[in-house]
């Protein structure tokens, strides 16, 4: 009876060939492995299975031995122990068909015959094994190269997948053919599309929908306008949605002429929140929650420049300096906690007066000293505002616990008008004038506002 190789369903071509070689040679075991100069043999197919673990060829220089005389005795060949011990019986004879390919110069097929083997060789090659099996050398080389390539591709694909799904970034890769998109899990959640291969137009529509929901959609539209013409366009922009800040990076892939593009979505909400918090801390007076001196000068300088440029009003701007009357006495008589309560309450009242005028800014610029910036405001309006501020404080006492404390403020005002060359030109000059007027208000009996 001639034994026919039984080829398992799903087996590779190399597996089938290995099986065939073993049957044809009447051997008990056949193993096709790849090995390079480092001598580590990686099994690719074996018959019977299962596939052995990788092993070191070590001193076994199988590829340098002349096998033209057919199988050789195992003794003296220093075969790897994993091969010698893979069977219940000792290995007796061995033959090697070298099938080098690419860098894998020590690759080949190892055939093993066991001692007292129950198998019998009934194959057509039985009288001339040494000459016939090596005929498969070229076929093995090709098959192993093919298998090797499949494994390499799988490895590369596995690595890509690991990277694609574990980076903390949503990724959309639009293929060069512009019909398919590859979407990772994070991007799929963000865009509400299926992960994996998706329809490019669906993914594109969802990306546009997300962009249109952004608070900064108008500036984003400008940023992405060049995309229509320029295939090489790349940009990084922050998309501000109601829930999060997303830094979106896009750049072309696959170079010129191929319309591939990658979109990276990186959630920077935490970073933005932290930055916002730091900005706020740097700009805010801790006790009153008002803008601090640093913030005031930043805004006021810009406002003076804008007034000179004639923007945001008719080239007018007013500045008030105000000071709590007899504040030192309040601290001395009622203690610093009361002083702090006065500062907080006063800040709230002043701010509520200014709340209807959204462009105004009030800041605590000294211990009991405040500054108010009134952009696009002329002298008449500034006087009205100053009056409202003064009465808001003087009207009713400040209450802290059981203590009802009448408090008043004095104000000095200065106005810049680009049409009147006698008015102060710079912020420093404005402050100087306002400070002088404040001094006059104090001298004049306090609880009053003094302008020119």
């Amino acid at each position: 009876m001639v034994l026919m190789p039984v080829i398992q369903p799903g087996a590779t071509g190399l597996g089938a060939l290995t099986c065939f070689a073993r049957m044809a040679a009447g051997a008990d075991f056949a193993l096709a492995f790849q090995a390079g100069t480092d001598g580590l043999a990686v099994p690719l197919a074996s018959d019977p299975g299962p596939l052995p673990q990788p092993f070191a060829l070590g001193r076994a220089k199988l590829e340098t031995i002349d096998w033209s005389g057919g199988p050789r005795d195992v003794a003296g060949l220093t075969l790897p122990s994993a091969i010698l011990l893979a069977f219940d019986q000792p290995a007796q004879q061995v033959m090697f068909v070298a099938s080098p390919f690419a860098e894998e110069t020590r690759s080949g097929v190892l055939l093993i015959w066991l001692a007292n083997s129950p198998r019998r060789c009934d194959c057509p090659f039985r009288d001339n094994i040494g000459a016939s099996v090596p005929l498969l050398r070229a076929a093995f080389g090709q098959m192993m190269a093919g298998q090797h390539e499949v494994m390499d591709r799988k490895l590369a694909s596995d690595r890509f997948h690991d990277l694609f799904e574990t980076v903390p970034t949503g990724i959309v890769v639009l293929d060069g053919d512009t019909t398919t998109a590859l979407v990772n899990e994070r991007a799929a959640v963000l865009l509400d599309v299926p992960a994996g291969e998706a329809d490019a137009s669906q993914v594109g529509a969802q990306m546009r929908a997300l962009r249109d929901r952004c608070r900064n959609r108008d500036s984003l539209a400008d940023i992405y306008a060049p995309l229509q013409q320029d295939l090489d366009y790349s940009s990084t922009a922050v998309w501000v949605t109601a829930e999060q800040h997303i830094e979106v990076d896009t750049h072309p892939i696959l170079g010129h002429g191929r319309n591939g593009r990658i979109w990276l979505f990186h959630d920077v909400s935490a970073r933005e929140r932290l930055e916002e918090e730091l900005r706020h801390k740097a700009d805010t007076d801790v006790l009153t929650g008002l803008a601090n001196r640093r913030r005031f000068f930043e805004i006021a300088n810009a406002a003076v420049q804008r007034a000179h440029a004639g923007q945001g009003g008719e080239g007018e701007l007013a500045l008030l300096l105000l000071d709590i009357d007899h504040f030192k006495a309040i601290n001395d008589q009622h203690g610093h906690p009361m002083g702090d309560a006065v500062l907080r309450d006063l800040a709230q009242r002043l701010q509520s007066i200014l709340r209807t005028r959204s462009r105004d800014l009030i800041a605590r610029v000294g211990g009991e000293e405040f500054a108010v910036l009134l952009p696009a405001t002329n002298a008449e309006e500034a006087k009205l505002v100053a009056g409202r501020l003064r009465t808001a404080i003087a009207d009713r006492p400040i209450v802290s616990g059981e203590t009802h404390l009448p408090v008043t403020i004095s104000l000095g005002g200065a106005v810049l008008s680009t049409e009147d060359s006698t008015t102060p030109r710079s912020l420093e000059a404005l402050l100087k004038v306002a400070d002088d007027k404040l001094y006059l208000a104090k001298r004049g009996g306090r609880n009053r506002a003094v302008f020119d």
Partner: protein
Amino acid sequence: MTLSSETPVVILSHGFGTDQTAWSAIRPWLESRFRVISYDLAGAGPDGAKTYDFRQHSTLFGFADDLLSLLASQNIERCIYIGHSVSGMIGAAAAVADPDAFAKLVMIGASPRYLNDEGYHGGFEQSDLDGVFDGMATNFQAWGAGFAPAVVGVPDNKAIDEFSRTLFQIRPDIALATSRTIFQSDMRAVARRLERQTHILQTARDLAVPQDVAAWLNKSIDGSTLDTLDAEGHLPHMTAPDEIISVLERRLLPTSNLA
């Protein structure tokens, strides 16, 4: 690799968590009688990261091939092999693959299979081993701090310190891979095929190797001897060297002229 004195040759192969310095307590006695060669297993010792290959050493056969290469490179045609713990089965594999190179084998605390099986008591369930591997992967230092005293098995601080030193010398990923290779191994078929004279040494209580395992080896290896030492723990060559020496004296010396 270190060698001294003249023939016959004794090869010393250490176990997991130690390196060749583990033999220092019994080495002087051996050196006055044999040419002694010790070596570090792949992954162990100061150069462990260089000698270990994750693919080649994924089975104990990879380690056995290293041993056979060492014998060949030193032109040793025949040796007396002393292996501790995992090196017991590494020696067994090498001695089945190349019987002529081994005059006899001494196995201290060896086990062909750590997992329990039908009709075989290896001492561990898979869940035990998974716990070990998880512990190693999560925090190797913390795991080692608990493992060292447990495996030494006696309150010998010097041995615990020494074992900890060599254990932490192993790169954690290599330690995890090696312990997987060891604890998941099944070398029973190899042990059954061993045809060289084998002396099995076992302590009265060993965390890694139950008495049943030593008895199984004794029964399965033709002509083997089993000596139960008056000692406890997995590292008797470190904690009870005199016990080891007295057995070696009895088992090795009458035939030490063997070439």
